[in-house]
């Protein structure tokens, strides 16, 4: 072949264009989800397996501190979303749904949706659940003896100044108040008088209503001995604490928290995003994440080992122990509860 100027130019033009041709075939999506220990476990269990199965789709994990921050991103980028999929608490997702920030998804587009538990769908929220979690009692096995089995341990005088609970308006505080209401005779979580009275009586014994960095760490370090937290993190941190912190589901039960996975309206790549959603909600990824971090699976077909399942609240009998709280209902009276909390709980010294 004779090298002519034209041939050289043509050849170099093709070579230069190659990466762009390849890139055009590769879709790219961004998933916004929680940072820290959640990301450490979600990346290998769910995102990495999706990357291996779909080399043509590039997934970027954009870490967020909390749901409100995620909502802030969606609001700011409404005209030109940079995030395709977002994970957030169901009550925050309600606000996002009301503002039309999510594109609804159907089982026709995302087949895994057909296998989800009925509890995965919340009326008025245009995003399916991706994880179930539940409130747990955290304690120090060294300093709290015998091991607690009831929420009533918080009312024992000997644990004065050893209790750390995130107070209202945080949902841990709301959950604790609703559980106290139930334990002390209230039969409806929408009427919390019994709960307020009970929590008011133990309030002077509370060391902090705003544990920093969190209740798990305060107990592990020995600053506090009793606390309230979420099961998934409680299980992971208790493993990491070397026996200095344990998480249990008390005999009176607890309540569920739901994270949803939403498709952002106006996102660049609906098809690739739906493919990821199908993977994340699918039986395999759900089981893998439960094995790693003990969130209860939302997919009813997820095959989880007995050992992992025992550390979640997904068994039928444990589900029956849960207070059936509708978080959207809670959102309606949360402001009133916050006001009462300040007047009736925080004034108690």
């Amino acid at each position, binding site marked *: 072949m004779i090298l002519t100027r034209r041939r050289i130019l043509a050849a170099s033009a093709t070579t230069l264009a190659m990466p762009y041709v390849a890139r055009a075939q590769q879709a790219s999506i961004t998933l916004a989800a929680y940072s820290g220990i959640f990301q450490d476990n979600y990346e290998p269990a769910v995102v990495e397996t999706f990357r291996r199965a779909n080399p043509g789709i590039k997934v970027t994990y954009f870490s967020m501190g909390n749901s*409100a921050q995620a909502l802030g991103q969606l609001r700011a980028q409404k005209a030109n979303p940079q995030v395709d999929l977002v994970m957030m608490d169901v009550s925050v997702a309600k*606000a996002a749904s009301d503002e039309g920030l999510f594109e609804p998804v159907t089982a026709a587009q995302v087949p895994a949706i057909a296998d989800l538990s009925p509890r995965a769908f919340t009326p008025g929220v245009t995003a399916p659940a991706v994880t179930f979690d539940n409130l747990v009692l955290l304690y120090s096995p060294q300093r709290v003896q015998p091991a607690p089995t009831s929420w009533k341990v918080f009312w024992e005088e000997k644990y004065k100044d050893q209790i750390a609970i995130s107070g209202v308006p945080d949902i841990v505080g709301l959950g604790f108040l609703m559980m106290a209401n139930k334990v002390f005779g209230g039969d409806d979580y929408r009427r919390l008088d019994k709960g307020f009275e009970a929590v008011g009586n133990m309030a002077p014994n509370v060391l902090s209503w705003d544990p*920093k960095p969190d209740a798990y760490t305060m107990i592990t370090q020995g*600053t506090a001995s009793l606390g309230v937290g979420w099961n998934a993190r409680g299980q992971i941190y208790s493993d990491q604490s070397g026996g200095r912190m344990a998480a249990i589901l008390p005999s009176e039960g607890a309540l569920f928290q739901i994270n949803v996975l939403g498709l952002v309206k106006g996102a660049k790549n609906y098809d690739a995003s739906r493919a990821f959603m199908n993977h994340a909600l699918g039986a395999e990824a759900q089981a893998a994440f439960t094995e790693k971090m003990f969130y209860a699976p939302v997919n009813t077909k997820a095959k989880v080992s007995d050992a992992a399942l025992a550390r979640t609240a997904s068994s039928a009998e444990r589900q029956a122990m849960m207070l059936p709280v509708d978080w*959207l209902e809670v959102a309606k009276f949360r402001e009133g509860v916050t006001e009462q909390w300040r007047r009736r709980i925080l004034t108690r010294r």
Partner: protein
Amino acid sequence: MPIASRIALALLLPALLVNMAVFLLPMGNLALLSFRQANEGGALLEGITLATWAKMFGDIFYAELVRDSVVIALAITGLTLLCSYPIALFIHRAPDRWKNMLVVMCISPLLVSAVVRTYGWMVILGDGGIIAAFLRWLGMVKAPRMVFNTTGVVVGLTEILMPYMILALIAGFGRLNTSLEEAAASLGAKPFTVFRRVVLPLTLPGIMLGCLLAFVLAVSSFITPKLLGGGRVFLLATEIYDQAIVTLNWPVAAALSIVVLVIFGFALTLYGRLARAVA
């Protein structure tokens, strides 16, 4: 327009533009947000309304919040001044070769982030800390709680603001001259009279500057009250965080931010008036 003014204007322009883009525009946005309304779940509703402001003026909680924030910030400012003034005076009178080292020592805490120092106070003031241990050694059965309440916040913020106060005081001590004190003493003034009639008036500009700085920093402080308040201390900044991040009521958070700005405005105006009166 004379050429000098034009050059001055041209030199000001970049700073002006940057300020417009990163300060005035977002502030305008914030002001606008305070006229929106959120539904009970936190979703922003369409349209402009005075409802958020009406609620804030109608609810005694917000009036108390502003009062408490200002009172606590003033208390912290006063304590910071009391702790910093002797140090600043000592540094001012120190021989020149020591002065620089002493100043560096005073501001060296700024090399460590306020978060880390606040955690330090959590340990010191906590039940297992040295103060509680000392009180127990003295025979006290149960040391009073010194952290996760207002006491903790006041102690922590006072220490954190001291370097700023010391720097401001030293900067304002320019007119203080040892020979004036000696002159007063030679005319028969007792040490306290010298301090009251000579030192204090001459250091007033520094005191005012330091107090302005400490007050503004205290009233807007977030991380220290959040960590040391234990959820029991309500200040403007922590309430803005709760409204924006926890209850998702952005209009209330925006309105409270504007309130903080107004308090800054009052503090600056007061400072301006006092500074002129002193001069």
